[in-house]
């Protein structure tokens, strides 16, 4: 059993690494290709950590992080 568990470790970490490393390659390639042929339009929001400097509460920082997603639900909950 212990052998199989180590086998799982190698196969598993190998698969996860292979998967995400390939994903890194594809994402990087995509970024290069798209920036050449379809550059980001000005309305694509930049993700600025500096924006956060004016924030004072923990909750506001979180709000940026999961911004759009919680937006919808917050609006729903707060009713307006």
């Amino acid at each position, binding site marked *: *059993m*212990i052998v*199989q*568990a*180590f*086998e*799982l*470790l190698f*196969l*598993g*970490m190998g*698969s*996860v*690494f*292979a*998967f*995400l*490393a*390939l*994903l*890194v390659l*594809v*994402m*990087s390639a*995509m*970024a290069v290709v*798209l*920036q050449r042929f*379809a*550059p*980001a*339009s000005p309305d*694509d*929001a*930049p*993700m*600025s*950590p*500096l924006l*956060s*400097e004016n924030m004072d509460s*923990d909750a506001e*920082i*979180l709000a*940026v*992080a*999961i*911004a*759009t*997603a*919680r937006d*919808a*639900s917050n609006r*729903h909950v707060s009713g307006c």
Partner: protein
Amino acid sequence: MHALLDGLMQLWHETGIYLASQGDGWKSVVMVLVCLVLLYLAIKKEFEPLLLLPIGFGGLLANLPGTAEFMTAVPDTTRGAEAMGAFLGIFYYYGIESGLCPLLIFMGVGAMTDFGPLLANPKTALLGVAAQFGIFTTVIGAVLVHLYVPGVDFFDPSNTLLSEPQQVLRAAASIGIIGGADGPTAIYTTTRLYRELLGAVAVAAYSYMALVPIIQPPIMRLLTTRSERAIEMKQLRPVSKLEKILFPLVVLGLCAALLPSATPLIGALMFGNLARESGVVQRLSDTMQNALVNIITIVLGLGVGMKLSAAAFLRPQTLGILALGLLAFAVATASGVLMGKLMNLLSREPINPLIGAAGVSAVPMAARVANKVGQEENPHNFLLMHAMGPNVAGVIGSAVAAGVLIAVCSRLAP
């Protein structure tokens, strides 16, 4: 009059007080207390209340003596209407054993997740790889516990369908996946491999996710120097809408090419994300993030709670699972941080190793923790968006790890 006394006597013999005082009844009382602790943690300490409140209440309902027939009976479709099951049993059978609820919640997670920070800095995905190390070392740990810790074993001799090594590996994988720090992934994996542990695994996974702000910082501080923690990272580039639309398709494509057993989780996650990013099905994306995920959370929570039965939970194994789950979180955090240090050494651009700890998933709590620990050293350090990259990569990483665990453990020879 005699009939009346008889009726009274029968009602008395059906009361919870009478039943709890008979035989193993006291175990139910202990489980009720365990569930009340869960509710306390959920309500007072706000430990992942969206999940732990329904799970705790489901556990309460499942452990009330004498209610099995009304509460936890599981449907047996081969027997027709006579065995259609009861309240929690129906939720468990159709919602969880089928795999639907964790997948639909993952769909909602996909619709709520912005993969932009990962796209802006792809190589932070590697931090999401390292953090999965916690899963697999815990699998080994669970096997060692089974073999060498007296009284704690993950083998049920009455289960004749699976041999001992099969059972132990499946149980170990279910325990290891706690280290994925991702509720739906942990629940889905456990239902595929070893359902007996579902209650304990789910409780451990959500509890430790809630404890991330307590578990992670000491490990992060131990493994990094002050100057490393103070590293500022350069602003992320803007990511175009097209990149965000292509991303879910790329991830699904890789998953299909490399690891079909991970496609249910990855597929559901990426369907939700495509609905979000495509911008043309706003109604559906809203529903996935709100009405649907809320309804499914209720069903999932109550159904998982049902598995907190005394027989399954009040065993030394549960302590083993809790200890191993904590180990998984700790190893995952450490691996992520160490990988962050390595990447900082090798990379041209500075990388703050703290964001490696966010690779464990636990979105967005772990990213928030990385940001906070970083600001303790350097108040001008805003790591949140940078930590979101490994954070969401960790979600994908643990779904891939779950796929490997399911694939390998399902085809083990007996």
